[in-house]
């Protein structure tokens, strides 16, 4: 059994630039972040013996590009939470002795589309047969499909959902790297351009270029590195369905309800031990579902919890402190950036640092509620 705090993150970095990066192809965004992460902890490619990145045929591309000969690889690609799942698998692999020093990379030219991943139509797939004929066109038309049912079930208003964007922007205002930093009001959100009712443009994530990388090793080796180790206390993962129309419950994600509590239980913590929380916010409803499905509040209570200011700067549960996918950056697979912010908060180096934070929970979603991964971090070895 993998021990709490047995594995640590010793390297963590984003690509040198995020946002619009027209001077780098997708694979170079991977490499740029990986080089930054290796540099900060004094490693060379020859020191890395495990590689994880998203997608079919990708680990060999990244390993070759960087000059790594791995004894362990993971190409798990289940959307934007794949990196949380890579962290989980990498921790287990190090525990098992399959590798000692694992590099997880992400790069996505989501905005500039240089060597970006193509997504050809699949008319024979179940999505192609039973969803695509009805006119969905990317995540903004699919991810919000359950929202009206959630609103009706719990009496959630358009103003409640707009508040998520307002609070997230407040955090972004503290982060010089955030793409959007100017304060916004509920009226600003509700008067912004309609994309797919009930959501408007300010309730949808950004589309950017960027990359990120993490380096994991055994905690007992962490003292050999110049960086402050960030310990992995607990992890969780699950999937539900690739068809948002077939979710068992439109007011809750089954994948969230497996991954989140699995991680929290493994970490041996209680909800009120958590000092800092990241919930992948591709769209404005996700922090609400995450707060409820991970058990921070009861079903239907997330709107009040957010409206009361608990997740704002100075609140008791700071949430999405980098400005989130809504205002910081969102390449297409934002989970890597949520992990980077958890690591920064645990190192004490975040632009909007939560004073004295010792435990951070980082929760990701993949596809349209189709997958989930959760990591509990601490800067103290248990």
């Amino acid at each position, binding site marked *: 059994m993998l021990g709490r705090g047995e594995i640590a993150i010793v390297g963590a970095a984003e690509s040198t630039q995020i946002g619009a990066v027209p001077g780098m192809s997708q694979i170079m965004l991977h490499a740029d972040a990986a080089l930054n992460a290796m540099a900060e902890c004094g490693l060379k490619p020859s020191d890395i013996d495990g590689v994880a990145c998203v997608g079919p045929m990708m680990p060999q591309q990244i390993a070759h590009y960087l000059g790594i000969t791995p004894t362990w690889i993971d190409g798990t690609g289940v959307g934007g939470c794949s990196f949380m799942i890579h962290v989980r698998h990498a921790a287990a692999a190090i525990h098992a002795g399959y590798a000692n020093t694992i590099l997880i990379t992400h790069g996505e030219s989501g905005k500039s589309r240089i060597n970006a991943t193509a997504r050809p139509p699949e*008319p024979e797939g179940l999505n*192609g047969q*039973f969803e695509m*004929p009805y*006119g*969905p066109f990317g995540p903004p038309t699919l991810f919000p*499909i359950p*929202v009206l049912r959630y609103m009706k079930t719990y009496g959630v208003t358009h103003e409640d959902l707009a508040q998520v964007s307002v609070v997230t922007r407040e955090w972004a205002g503290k982060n010089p790297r955030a793409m959007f930093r100017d304060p916004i009001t509920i009226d600003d959100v509700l008067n912004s351009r309609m994309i*797919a009712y*009930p959501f408007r443009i300010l309730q949808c994530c950004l589309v950017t270029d960027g990359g990120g990388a993490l380096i994991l090793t055994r905690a007992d080796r962490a003292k050999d590195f110049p960086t402050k180790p960030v310990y992995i206390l607990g992890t969780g993962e699950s999937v539900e369905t690739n068809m948002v129309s077939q979710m068992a419950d439109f007011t809750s994600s089954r994948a969230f309800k497996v991954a989140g509590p699995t991680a929290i239980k493994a970490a041996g913590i209680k909800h009120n031990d958590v000092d800092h929380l990241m919930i992948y916010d591709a769209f404005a409803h996700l922090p609400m579902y995450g707060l409820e499905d991970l058990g921070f509040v009861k079903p239907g209570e997330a709107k009040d919890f957010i409206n009361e200011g608990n997740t704002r700067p100075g609140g008791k549960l700071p949430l999405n402190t980098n400005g989130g996918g809504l205002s910081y950056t969102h390449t297409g697979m934002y989970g890597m950036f949520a992990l980077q912010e958890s690591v920064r908060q645990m190192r004490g180096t975040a632009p909007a640092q939560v004073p004295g934070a010792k435990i951070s929970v980082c929760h990701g979603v993949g596809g349209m509620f189709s997958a989930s991964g959760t990591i509990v971090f601490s800067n103290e070895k248990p």
Partner: protein
Amino acid sequence: MLEPGRPKPKPTPETKHFWDGTKQGKLLLQRCGDTGKVYFPPRPFSPYTGTRNVSVVEASGKAKLYSYVIHHRPVPGFTPPYAIAVVELEEGPRLMTNIIDCPQTPEALVLDMPLEVAFTPMDDDITLPLFRPAKGG
């Protein structure tokens, strides 16, 4: 009739009966032989127990509006704004569809409103199960 350009489903051996059914004006679901529960999308075994003992059953075509978005940007085959809906069939399963003969507005598209299936041909091969407000509903 449907605008040209809409993505066209391509049946597989496991879903052919469903698409043959819609062409004949039947909405065909499947029933688990172990639990009696009806399921969708089509597959030749039960997602509840894994049994291959399943049967095809014809749905009533009655449904209620479960959730939706109204898309405001242009997409090939669609004129915005148009609703992408999920309906809950009387038999239990939910499916994605479009709502026709109804303004595509939040005021007209009320959750839980009763609906009925409206088989709508794309072409000679494929008929889509769209839905419309139920008569007298």
